Structures are given as C-alpha cells and as structure tokens.
C-alpha cells in the first residue's frame, strides 16, 4: 500500500490537517509537542482503529472535543484505490468505513492497510514483561491473518467465561466438573491453535530478525528467538492435536488448584518469547545499543512477514527514531525500508540531518509541523536540495 494522503480531524492538537504524501520518505519535523507523532497515530487509526501506543480515545481527541476522525487514501499494490475513515464520538462505537464497506469493526479493518510502527514506547518489547512480547507477536499475526484475529477474540471470551465458572465458589466438585468441562474443551481447542500459530510465526520470524539485526547493527552477534509455551512446551512438533492433548493434561493436573484460586491457570495467555544474543538471554545481558538494534530488527522482520502474508507492502511509521539510534544505524534502517519499496513516515526534531541521510533517488517530503498545523512542505523527487519548495 502506498498512501496518497492522510487527514486528521480534532486529533490531539490538530484541528483539521490534510497532508499529501510521497511514495518514499515522508519526514515530519518540528520541535517536541507540535503534533508530528499525531500524523503517525492517524495512520495507525486508519490501519487498526487504534494508536500504536496505548492511549484512551478521549485523550486522542483535541482538548474540549468529544469526537475525532482520521481518514486516508491510498493505492493498493495491485493498483486498486483504497480509502478508509475512522470516526470516534464519546460514548459511541467507532464508525469505520472503507472501500470494503460500511459499519466495519476493528477486526474487519486489520490487515487491509498493513502498518508497522516503531516508537520509543516499544522498548518494552525486549525489556518488559512477557505480556509485551505476546502483544507484539499477536499484533503481527492479527494483521497477517483474519483467522488469528478471530481466534484471539474467542480465546479472550472463553477465558473470561471459564474464569466466571471457576469463580462461582458454591458449586460442588461434581457439578463444577460437568459445567466446566465444555468450557475447558473449547478453551483447549482455541488455545492449541493459538499456541501452534505463534510457534510457527516465531520460526518464520527468527531468521528474518537475525538477518535484519546484522544489517542494522553492523555487528556479528547471533540473535535467536524461542517460544516459551506454558504447559505445552514439551510438545515439540507444531501439531494442534498434540498441543491440545497437552493442555487437556494440564487442565486435569491443575483442576484442584484452579478451583481453589477460582481462575484458569494454563493457556497461551501465560506464554513468552525469549530472545538470546550469542546464546545469552537478552533481558539480562544485552547492552542498551543491542536492545535498540534488536527492536528495530524485530520491526523490520515484521515488515517482511506482513508483506508475505498480505501481499501488500506495509506502511512504516518511525516515531523519533533518531533519538534512539545513532545516525549510521538510522541510515541503514531507512535504506532497508526504502529499498523494499515501502512507504515510510518519520518524525524528527532535526529534518535537515535526516534529509541528508535519505538514499539518493528517493521521493522525499519534508513537512514542518507547528502547533497542530503543517506550516511548510517541500517535495523532492530525489534527495536533492532546493527544488519544489512550497510555502503556506
């Protein structure tokens, strides 16, 4: 997908902003807090009906507004036009329309406009708790497969329902067993499918991450990824029936404890992904620089997975990359993204420097943002200076 334009209505400090984009590198520059990242968030809203960082809808809306909207126009990789609009009003469900239809849900939207976002907030993927890594993996798989989105929804629902049965304390052992059994069976079935899909996805991601890491860091360390699955880790082959059998065994083994605690104690909601660098766990032994390179490598690998799965080049959103990586690494990231023909949007406080790092022959837009408005736009068909400047 190549986006032609993005429109923000009452998002953060933007009143109404429309920005025409170029197919290559789109640089949004300006001091902190002027509304650069909001443009990236608007694209994220158009892609998955939420920002790429956790934020409440009310906080996304302009101060004093109880509604916001984001819309985008683009061209799919098969040259079919694509349009999408997401509108939110306080107390109502988001109204989502696209070329595919009206009254869509976030589940319908995901994967139509594949997006890969990299923000300083994503550091928690390699640093933080297991939930962060599951969220990353789920986000990749959810954009790549509609079936996976449905499985995630079913899993969440089944987990809640099963916990509700377990929390109903007055039930005696036998009555509980009869009531719990069908929920367990359905939960085990969905859990096994999720677990196997995640394990397969890790096997697919690992070599891509390894390659991207070497390219970005310029180092020679070896990155490995291992899926650490609760209760079913000993099942080595990615066979749904075998994994389901292992979950069933866990359900029997943990029955007593689950009844005491009143909640589900097994399942993919407890899984983790372990990264190692030269055989040592990243969380314990990686340097700051290695963490950063790994995060970027994960996102670049996500790009290639999504591209293969959806047949569509994802749009890449790089939020404040230069505050995190040195210039040389940034240059390599941009080079790799652009070499694969992906459209890129990048925020920075230093537009001049970024422009010098964009590979020659790339279409470049430099847009200056001030107080929620685009005050200056320059378009270049390649990275030469001083042509096509337009002032507003």
């Amino acid at each position, binding site marked *: 997908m190549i986006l032609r334009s993005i429109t923000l209505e009452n998002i953060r400090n933007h009143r109404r902003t429309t920005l025409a984009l170029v197919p290559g590198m789109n640089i949004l520059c300006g001091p902190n807090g002027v509304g650069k990242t909001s443009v990236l968030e608007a694209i994220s809203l158009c892609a998955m009906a939420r920002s790429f960082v956790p934020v409440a809808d009310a906080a996304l809306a302009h101060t004093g507004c109880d509604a916001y909207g984001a819309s985008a126009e683009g061209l799919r990789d098969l040259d079919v036009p694509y349009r999408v609009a997401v509108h939110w009003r306080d107390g109502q469900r988001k109204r989502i329309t696209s070329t595919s239809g009206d009254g869509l849900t976030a589940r319908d939207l995901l994967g139509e406009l594949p997006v890969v976002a990299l923000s300083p907030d994503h550091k928690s993927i390699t640093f933080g708790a297991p939930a962060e890594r599951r969220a990353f993996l789920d986000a990749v798989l959810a954009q790549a497969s509609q079936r996976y989105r*449905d499985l995630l929804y079913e899993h969440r629902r089944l987990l809640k329902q099963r916990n*509700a049965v377990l929390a109903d304390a007055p039930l005696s052992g036998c009555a509980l067993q009869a009531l719990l*059994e*069908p929920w367990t069976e*359905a939960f085990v079935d969905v859990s096994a499918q999720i677990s196997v899909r995640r394990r397969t996805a890790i096997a697919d991601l690992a070599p891509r991450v390894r390659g991207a890491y070497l390219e970005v860091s310029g180092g020679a360390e070896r990155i490995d990824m291992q899926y650490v699955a609760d209760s079913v880790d000993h099942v080595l082959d990615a066979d749904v029936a075998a994994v389901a059998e292992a979950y069933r065994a866990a359900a029997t083994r943990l029955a007593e404890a689950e009844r005491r605690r009143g909640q589900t104690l097994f399942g993919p909601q407890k899984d983790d992904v372990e990264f190692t660098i030269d055989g040592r766990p990243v969380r314990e032994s990686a340097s700051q620089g290695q963490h950063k390179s790994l995060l970027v490598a994960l996102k670049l690998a996500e790009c290639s997975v999504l591209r293969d799965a959806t047949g569509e080049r994802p749009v890449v959103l790089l939020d404040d990359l230069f505050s995190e990586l040195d210039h040389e690494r940034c240059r390599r990231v941009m080079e790799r993204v652009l070499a694969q023909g992906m459209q890129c949007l990048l925020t920075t406080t230093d537009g001049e420097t970024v422009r010098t790092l964009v590979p020659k022959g790339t279409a470049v837009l430099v847009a200056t943002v001030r107080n929620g408005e685009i005050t200056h736009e320059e378009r270049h068909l390649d990275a030469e200076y001083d042509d096509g400047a337009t002032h507003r």
Partner: protein
Amino acid sequence: MAPDAIDQVVELFATLPTIGRKTARRLAFHLLRQPPEFVEQFAASLVSMRTAVRECTQCCTFTDRDVCAICASPKRDRSTICVVEHPSDVMAIERTHEYRGLYHVLHGTLSPLDNIGPDDVRIRELLGRLDGVNEVILAINPNVEGEVTTLYIARQLQTLGIRVTRIARGVPVGTDLEFADDATLAKAIEGRTTL
C-alpha cells in the same frame, strides 16, 4: 397532547432493538397522524400478544396454545428433535421445508459471565422429553457461547445412547469460494465429507 407524552413514546420506541432515536421519533409522529382507532387496535394487539403468547409446554417455542402447532401436528417425525437458540430460528428452518421433525428452543446459551447456567436455558426441559427420540440435531449459533452450549448438551445426551448430530458449517450456496471468509472456509475444510 403534551410534548411529554410524545417524548415518553419516543423513549420507549428507542429501547427496541435496531431502533435509534431518529426512527423512534418518526414512528411516534407516524402514529399521531393515524386515526385513533388504529392506535387503539395497535396497542391492544401488543397487550393481547403479551398475555396470550407463552412457551409451548413441549418445545418451549412461543405459542398462544398449550402445545404449539408443530408439536401438535401428527405429520411431524417425533423421533427427531432439532435444538435451536431462539423461536426465530424455528421459523428459519421451517422456511426450508426440508425438516420434518420437532424442535426444542433454549431461549439463550450458557454464559457464566451473565450468570446464565444450564437451569436458565431450557436444557432440563429437553432432557425431560427424550422418550422415543432417536436423534437430536444441535443447530445452535456457532459463536463462542453457542459452541460451548452445543458441547454441554452433547455431553449430557451421550450417556443416554441417543444419536447427537450438529448442523454442518460451510460455504454459503451460490457463492464462490474466494469470497468466503477465512473462518468459514477453515471450518468447511475441517468438516469436509467423504464422497
């Protein structure tokens, strides 16, 4: 008529499914333009429907008699029961003219989150009417709660030696495979049959 009375009617219409405030207002004003006899008859029909219609003592669908027309009919095959979620599902299956057996309406699905257990849907009533029944067809909606309710009933029936089946899930008739959504197609492949 005081505008309060209009507001009250609008509020009431707006509580109905699929009716928003705008439509509710249109309906209220439409009724105001009708002759008073029409509105009286309209209101009376609503009241009499509510008082006359109850659940069939056998299949639990809505009826204005003790036993609904389907349960009372001598032409129906009494050895087969099709279990559905809502009375409207009975009508949907009847429209096909392909099914000759009886029905059983659950009026819901299991949902512990909403405190709905087996005693809150008509499962006990189903278990009480299995004399002479050879097959129970489970035709409950295939969402998360529906699937679990299907599993639960199947477990209860298995011990009784009755044949338990479920309706097939698959690609809608008259559409191309490429337009079927992934989940439907996946289920269709899972439930494939031998030729």
